């Protein structure tokens, strides 16, 4: 399963990363042209967060496909990138299901597939309130080399990612993750808070974490004209996330914490681009993260699939 690019010259000791990046860039470019050219309409109203969830679910029958990646600087080790693909489907107006495929590549080491995750989000209340709860349940089947960092829990630290892939991938993470998502909309702002509880199904205590974010479109109303670069298509925000220890030791010390501003560019045809630099807030954190993603939403995907079988 492991892929190792041969060294071409000592000067390019980590040349293999160019291969990984090149493949990713190619796929992203394909996404870009495919999506920008496609004259589809889409109803995305999601927030720009990478880690925090809001109460806005996928519209029923719509499928959103997103290609994202997480780049991080590594203390005492090699920097890495961790791309993942996610498929988000609106099963019902109150139920969204999402499937992830994770991978990563570490400079000077190797690139590998690290596992999959399947999550479901449910809105228990059928109306909007000041604070809207969403229940989140996820099954994760990944290995220890997973570096997507879509959540930080327990005593996750940057040192965990310095372990060579050959060693890290031996650890099997067979986990159940739950979240209580609380989210509010007020005067164009979205404010969301997530409380995370994760349990390794084989052993280990419950691990806890948090994420919180706020975001707002740069312009609240829209202009009558079709446009790609007007302010209404941009959403800016920031999120904070980190670990809260375990059920044996609930604490904010000894774990990692991050702050990350972000911007999202939402094109009218359903394509969106997100980028978010992240900054570690203590010595247990990676000093710098850079996440970016491109997504496309297919309207009425479920109906189109059903029409194939009629």
């Amino acid at each position, binding site marked *: 399963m492991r892929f190792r690019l041969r060294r071409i010259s000592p000067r390019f000791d980590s040349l293999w990363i160019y291969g990984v990046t090149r493949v990713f860039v190619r796929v992203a470019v394909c996404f870009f042209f495919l999506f920008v050219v496609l004259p589809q309409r889409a109803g995305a109203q999601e927030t720009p967060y990478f880690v925090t969830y809001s109460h*806005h679910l996928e519209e029923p029958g719509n499928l959103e496909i997103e290609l994202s990646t997480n780049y991080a600087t590594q203390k005492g080790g090699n920097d890495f990138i961790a791309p993942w693909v996610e498929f988000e489907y609106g099963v019902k107006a109150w139920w969204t299901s999402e499937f992830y495929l994770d991978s990563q590549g570490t400079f000077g080491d190797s690139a590998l597939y690290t596992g999959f995750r399947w999550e479901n989000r449910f809105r228990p209340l059928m109306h909007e309130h000041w604070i809207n709860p969403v229940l989140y349940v996820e099954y994760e089947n990944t290995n220890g080399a997973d570096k997507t960092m879509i959540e930080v829990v327990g005593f996750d630290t940057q040192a965990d990612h310095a372990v060579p892939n050959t060693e890290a991938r031996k650890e099997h993470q067979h986990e159940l993750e739950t979240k209580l998502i609380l989210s509010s909309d007020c005067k164009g702002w979205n404010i969301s808070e997530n409380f995370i509880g994760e349990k390794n199904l084989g052993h280990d205590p419950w691990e806890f974490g948090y994420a919180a974010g706020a975001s707002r*479109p740069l312009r609240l109303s829209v202009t009558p004209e079709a446009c790609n670069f007007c302010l209404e298509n941009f959403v800016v925000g920031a999120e904070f996330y980190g670990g809260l220890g375990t059920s044996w030791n609930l604490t904010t010390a000894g774990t990692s914490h991050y702050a990350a501003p972000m911007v999202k560019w939402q094109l009218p045809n359903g394509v969106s681009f997100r980028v978010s630099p992240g900054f570690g807030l203590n010595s247990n954190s990676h000093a710098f993260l850079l996440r970016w993603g491109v997504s496309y939403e297919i309207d009425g995907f479920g109906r189109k699939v059903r029409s194939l079988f009629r």
Partner: protein
Amino acid sequence: MIRKLTSGWLLVLSITFGIAGSGSATSPNPSGHGERETDDRGVLQAIAQAPVKTREWRNPYEDQPSALLAGKKLFMQHCAECHGANGRGIGRALNLHLPYVQRATPGELEWFLRNGNLWAGMPSWSGLPEQRRWQIVSYLKSLR
């Protein structure tokens, strides 16, 4: 490994887009040009759940032609997939020309857009800023 992984992703994406492209962006209205007479009582009841005070809410964009055009743009982006480009509804989605929809006050419609009717399949559009929901209401009211 990376190539295999990327190939796998691209295969899945190809299948996905193949399926997505197999249907038209908006299916034709099964009822043609006539008013569709489906069981919309659930929606009627859902609109009726709007608090009384919403009937007094005024659309800040009322009588603004630019808001109507902006609302049409939003409608085409967010609503037309289910309700049809002409607003007459597709499948279970509501025909927005029906009298009781047009009789609803702007405030009730804005409340309904914000809350949706989740159990019946109408999503909540609270993720859209309030100003955009009012722009959509402007357009909905122009359909009569």
